[in-house]
């Protein structure tokens, strides 16, 4: 069951450049999407979210884009910093139909100084 997929297991970016992390989903019922960041030996930390009624949400260096017709979302980090190096998970849920988050497999981002 791969309702949420992150096809790139890893991404390496130079400091100061843009990092683009991608996520695809198959369940058209999903209407709320989140990005979490995870360091080793820690729990996921919420970064940014987007509702399906929007196509973009921005918070500082982080922007999430949602393309509902393609069932695709992406997280842009600009400028990337070495401290952004972590595993990034996208997650999806159906509002008002339960509380579970369905996670993608994660993308390990490495930002090189």
């Amino acid at each position: 069951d791969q309702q949420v997929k992150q096809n790139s297991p890893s991404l390496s970016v130079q400091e100061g450049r843009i990092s683009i992390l991608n996520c695809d989903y198959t369940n058209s019922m999903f209407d709320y999407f989140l990005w979490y960041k995870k360091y080793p030996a820690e729990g996921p930390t919420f970064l940014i979210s987007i509702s399906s009624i929007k196509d973009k949400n921005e918070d500082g260096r982080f922007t999430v884009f949602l393309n509902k017709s393609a069932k695709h979302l992406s997280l842009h980090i600009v400028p990337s910093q070495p401290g952004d190096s972590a595993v990034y998970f996208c997650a999806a849920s159906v509002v008002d139909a339960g509380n579970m988050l369905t996670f993608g497999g994660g993308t390990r981002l490495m930002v090189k100084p």
Partner: protein
Amino acid sequence: EPEVTQTPSHQVTQMGQEVILRCVPISNHLYFYWYRQILGQKVEFLVSFYNNEISEKSEIFDDQFSVERPDGSNFTLKIRSTKLEDSAMYFCASSVRPNGGDTEAFFGQGTRLTVV
């Protein structure tokens, strides 16, 4: 900043033993969750809990698992008879409202369960 705390950080148990993982959610949160991540795999939903009852559970959450809020602050996950395949990182999470609608779940740092 308020946070979800989990104890212990690492638990080693013998196969067949019962284990209880403990969590203290953020104090004004009403929804509580357990997720797990087997090494190298996805974070998987186990169960959600609201108003002193399970609101949703996955197929992973079989009769060997149970959750409880024994008092006003703790939220526990019990595995009655552990199996080798229960070895994973278990994350507790809590939220003010259900996921979605401009709210998000806050996760604890996790308990690494090793069944030997």
